[in-house]
């Protein structure tokens, strides 16, 4: 399943006109999402949605072909003991592992996302970043997760950051581009919003919170700000942009609260893997355990779910 990326004319947005964000107000709205009580049929539906939205990820220096093949096995066979489960949306690996993943996922409708652009730091030259992108796409990646240059952004070099995203998007060809803001390094919610606006106008198909390599990774607060930015961009241009919180979402209950937040901010159209992903690895098993508990009525043990 490769979705054709929507082409869009790129113009630097006026970041001075980006709405201010009040942190305390955001915290309070998030608290309301977290007090939603999702039970019974709606819980089962939510957990299945969560599974279908996962980008199953391995991004370690110690990754090997064997590791990646096992991850792909898990992507295809989440928990065969339970019929009727969706498969995950994608696997996410380093560029050198894309070929392995492509082979392992042959015949299955699972996306192959590759990080690129000197992930996770982004500290390299334009040429290296574009080469890496093209390499990953050529090897079979259907999605590219790039990082923005945070240093340049914090130094106010917005045009540089913008141009970089435009160039990477072009190098993606038909692959969909996720732009990682690394919100944990941006400092304030105002900057998260500005970076979101910048990335979307530069052509991002998805905006993503984090590399998962630093703390804090995804939080409900930064995610809400990004969802609101997506909403305003959609109002302004008619173009949908997807959203991916990554890192730090290891329990299903939290993931379901993210879905509550998504539903009440962007509505029904975004509630599919086409427009929302979770960047996670251990989330899948927790969601499976919750599903088992819902259907059997008893609390589960991790021993019964494969750790690939």
């Amino acid at each position, binding site marked *: 399943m490769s979705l054709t990326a929507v082409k869009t004319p790129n113009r630097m947005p006026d970041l001075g006109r980006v709405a201010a964000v*009040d942190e305390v*107000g955001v915290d309070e709205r998030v608290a309301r999402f977290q007090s*939603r009580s*999702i039970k019974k*049929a709606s819980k089962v539906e939510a957990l299945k*949605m969560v599974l279908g939205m996962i980008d199953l990820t391995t991004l370690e220096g110690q990754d090997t072909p064997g590791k990646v093949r096992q991850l792909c096995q898990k992507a295809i066979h989440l928990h065969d003991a339970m019929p009727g489960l969706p498969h995950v949306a994608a696997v996410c690996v380093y560029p050198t592992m894309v070929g392995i993943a492509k082979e392992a996922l042959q015949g299955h409708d699972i996306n192959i996302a590759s990080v690129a652009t000197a992930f996770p730091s982004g500290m390299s030259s334009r040429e290296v970043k574009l080469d890496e992108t093209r390499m990953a796409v050529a090897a079979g990646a259907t999605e590219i997760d790039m990082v923005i240059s945070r240093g340049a952004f914090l130094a106010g070099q917005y045009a540089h950051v913008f141009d970089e995203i435009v160039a990477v998007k072009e190098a993606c060809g038909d692959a969909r581009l996720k732009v990682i803001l690394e919100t944990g390094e941006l400092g304030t919610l105002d900057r998260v919003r500005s970076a979101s606006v910048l990335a979307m106008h530069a052509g991002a198909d998805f905006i993503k919170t984090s590399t998962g390599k630093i703390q804090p990774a995804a939080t409900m607060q930064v995610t809400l700000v990004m969802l609101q930015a997506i909403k305003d961009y959609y*109002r302004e241009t008619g173009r949908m942009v997807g959203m991916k919180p990554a890192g730090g979402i290891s329990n299903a209950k939290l993931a379901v609260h993210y879905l509550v937040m998504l539903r009440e901010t962007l509505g*029904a159209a975004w509630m599919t893997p086409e427009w929302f992903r979770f960047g996670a690895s251990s989330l899948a098993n927790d969601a499976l355990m919750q599903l088992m508990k819902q259907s059997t009525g008893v609390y589960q043990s991790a021993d019964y779910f494969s750790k690939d």
Partner: protein
Amino acid sequence: MAIPENKLAFDGGWNYAPAPESTDHIVVKKRYGLFINGDFRAPEKGRYFDTLNPANEEKLSRVAMASQTDVDKAVKAARKAYTGPWSRMKAKERGKYIFRIARMIQERAREFAVIESLDGGKPIRESRDVDVPLAAAHFFYYAGWADKLEYAFPGRKAKALGVAGQVIPWNFPLLMASWKIAPALACGNTVVLKPAETTPLTALKLAEVIADAGLPDGVVNIVTGAGDTGAAIVTHPGVDKVAFTGSTNVGRIIQKALAGTNKKYTLELGGKAANIIFADAAIDQAVEGIVNGIFFNQGHVCCAGSRLLVQESVADEVIEKLKDRMETLIVGDPLDKNTDIGAINSRMQLEKIESYLKIGQSEGGEMHQSSCSLPKSGYWCRPTIFTGVSQSSRVVQEEIFGPVLAIQTFRTYDEALTKANNTPYGLSGGVWTDKGSKIFKMTQGIRAGVIWANTFNKFDPTSPFGGYKESGMGREGGLHGLGAYVKLEA
């Protein structure tokens, strides 16, 4: 810039299943007497009335209708306790009783929250997360003042007044009881309190806590009843201090009735607060502030932000976002943990709100309501906004006390301030702007007792609350809240 037609859809797809709070652990008696002198006793005339669940109109319990004689007994008990054990007790020991009440409310929090929602209609999430914790916190805060009054009034000795007669409303029943009882006790007074006739139950449960806490008999007396009972308390010659929270109309009546007496009184009355959004506000959070200001607690809030004044350049965006947010508000069973807006407190109140909806439309206002479904029985009102109204519209001037927002635009700072103050009320106001200096200028200019900047409807036991003008006089909460319950001697 015109807003394109790219609309978001909030219905369809994934919905939330019912998530009912369990009620099997609570205890509501079939019938309650009057809590006088440490005991529940039958009303002298033997009359009782029903208290209903506004979500389904079912009877929850029967409570006593206190007559003049019953009120007399209560005041006598309060007087006896005052001149006896209560004023002889060491201040720090008095404080320790009040701390006990606070802790017991915390221990029994869930039961209080469930009963509050059953009796009054507010969502369990609100009573669980806001009302009950705040009520406990009020007792906790004032408990600490009991032995510290010498520091609260420079150059003056603070002495108790005697017996406080207190009448409270139905919108925050337990919380209002704590706002009244805690400071009164801390300052050494004794209390006769009447809860509202549609929401007596949590006050009666509080009476049980007070008895369990071992408070000496007669220090707190809870008498249920309707308007006559309230009048009897307020005018009783044995009451030294009157505290009333309710409508401005009744406040006027009380103030007249107290003319010529020596009674001290405080009144916390109605409001029609302006919530002002400037173009440089954090818009998404401001929209949430509007929702907090008028839709939560069904708009049954004296300090509700019931008038929105939005700067014209962002008006379309704000209203569009508000409508989207309204679509995600769930109106329904107060005991469902996902309910955002519960039942209107009574049939009478619902009729009053509905009459204003008619008035607003007949005045030429454009009414918009969310599209949510409503339960079949019980009293319900969807979140509602009116546009195309002005300062001369009745829905802009008069307090509706429901989830109904009147929206006007403004162009300049001065215009916003003028409109905000152009009302006989003066309880609260809201200001939304990212510019600090504008916040302070606005709060300097708005004639209201509580001003929320970049937030709304925040309450804390340490923060004084009360109105200017016809919204009442006197402050509750904080250091300033002590003044109502003491006399100061040089």
